């Protein structure tokens, strides 16, 4: 309802303050990204001549090429080539996202559509994992991984992270809303539980799966502590870890153009997933926090 009596509720074009505030907010959000991008296109001497230029230079191909093929300097040694680390990150992110979705949808289906002893006990066991992040059980988790011979393997990097209370809760909530009539109709038609799952439940869950995929891909790609603990071998390094190793924390020389090129390569895949799948991303955020 628009009313000329209440101009302040529907600000006219003359009201610039909101636009100004939003513009400042966007500038602050984008500024570090712009500077990182610019630095990734400069040579190191260009970066060192303070103040650094704020327009892209002509070293982009050289920098990204060197980072991708050769890797960056980490202290006295080189990191693995960035393309290898990106491959590790991709394997990790995709396996975790897909794995979490598969095992969560199956366990939610069992908990909702069957009655069996210990059903709720299983459900609570899954729920409680929310309260046991890696951060609170670092040393014993490493011991388990070592005993199982899973250090420095893709299995070690991914399988332990595949349990998901969040995804199970989301699927369970959604399955509760599937009408009983639909289940009855399927049973009358003689559809067994797995046929019902494949032909009815799975197609109905597509948007939820897409929403979860975005959230879980970010989760997997952006892992830090886990690959730091489990992927100690350089060839198992993810790009996020590799990038942080290129920063010399002792205050020695850092090749900032390499670090920034690697940082851009490390942030591009998750940012693209969020921007391209934005509708599902927002849905996923809202749903998983319920």
């Amino acid at each position, binding site marked *: 309802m628009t009313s000329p*009596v*209440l101009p302040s509720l529907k600000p006219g074009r003359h009201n610039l303050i*909101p*636009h100004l*505030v939003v513009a400042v*907010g966007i500038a602050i*959000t*984008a500024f*570090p*990204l712009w500077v*990182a991008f610019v630095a990734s296109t400069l040579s190191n001497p260009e970066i060192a001549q303070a*103040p*650094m230029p704020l327009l892209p230079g002509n070293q982009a191909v050289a920098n990204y090429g060197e980072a991708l093929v050769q890797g960056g300097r980490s202290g006295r040694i080189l990191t693995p080539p960035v393309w290898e680390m990106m491959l590790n990150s991709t394997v990790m992110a995709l396996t975790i996202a897909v794995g979490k979705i598969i*095992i969560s949808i*199956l*366990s939610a289906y*069992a*908990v*909702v*559509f069957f*009655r*069996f002893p210990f059903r709720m006990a299983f459900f609570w*066991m*899954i729920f409680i*994992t929310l*309260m*046991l992040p890696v*951060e*609170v*059980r670092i*040393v*014993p*988790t*490493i*011991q*388990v991984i070592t005993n199982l011979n899973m250090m420095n393997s893709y299995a070690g990097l991914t399988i332990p992270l595949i*349990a998901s209370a969040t995804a*199970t809760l989301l699927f369970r909530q959604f*399955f*509760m809303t599937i009408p009983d009539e639909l289940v*009855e109709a399927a*049973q009358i038609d003689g559809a067994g539980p*797995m046929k*019902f799952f494949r032909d009815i439940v799975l197609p109905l869950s597509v948007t939820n799966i897409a929403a979860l995929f975005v959230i879980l891909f970010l989760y997997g*790609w*952006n892992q*830090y*502590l886990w690959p730091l*603990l489990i992927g100690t071998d350089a060839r198992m390094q993810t790009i996020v870890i590799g990038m*942080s190793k290129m*920063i010399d*924390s002792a205050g020695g020389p850092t090749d900032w153009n390499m*670090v920034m090129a690697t940082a851009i390569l490390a*942030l591009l895949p998750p940012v693209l*997933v969020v*921007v391209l799948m934005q509708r599902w*991303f*927002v849905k996923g*955020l809202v749903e998983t926090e*319920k």
Partner: protein
Amino acid sequence: MERKVVYPQKLLPYLLVAPQIAITLVFFFWPAGQAIWMSTLLQDPLGFSVQFVGLENFEAVLKDPAYLATLQRTFLFSFGVTALAMVPALLLAVMVDRVVRGATAYRTILVIPYAIAPAVAGALWLFLFQPSIGTIAYPLRFLGIDWNPRIDGTDAMIVVVIASAWKQIGYNFLFFLAGLQSIPKSLLEAAAIDGATEVRRFWTIVFPLLSPTTFFLLVINITYAFFDTFGVIHAVTQGGPGKSTEVLIYKAWYDGLIAQDLGRSSAQAVILMVIVIGLTVIQFRYVERRVHY
């Protein structure tokens, strides 16, 4: 809530939950149990003998001035991150709510940092704040500010707080905007007819109606600051200079893996467990109320 119509199979449901339960037991419950057990043991430095000491590790940790300093630092850090991530997000949401046109485009840009790994966010801000070359550090030096996060603890803390908060603003913005858009416009119009100014309308109507969202975000942001910022600190400051950016998670990791003090590190892990459990319970209890509301 239970379904009325279910499938009668007896074995199948066990097979369906088996993978998740197996992972849960092996990688969550077993290590968590170990952490609790180890927190009651004292190991001699060479690892030859182990002795049960009950709650002594907890006593030692909670009486350790270094631990208490880290605890205090963690509160300061979490407060800084939460405030810096929430206040600008609310301001932006209020403004975007009024702009109407272009809201989707703004949302897209503002939410991008949320997709970025904490360590990468840390690297971007460290670069801006790099003493001799950083784009922000450079003008600071002109203003006569002796800026160096490598040497000065406060400077280092400022960098990790800003990097951690920057990542989270877009997330808070999304939830604040959704909260604002669900406030009935008729309420605001009625207040406007009664002559309430815009500022007054915000504080008497909008802000109270947003309080469930605000509280929810408060819990989420505190949890984030406590548990998800390890990457920022490890990549940017390594807890330093000195211990000036060492937070609880970083200390638990350092004492367990680098200093190899298993008993005390496990006691710290158990304390952290209690904190997560507390935050999760608050979050879920609150959500239940939100559903009824």
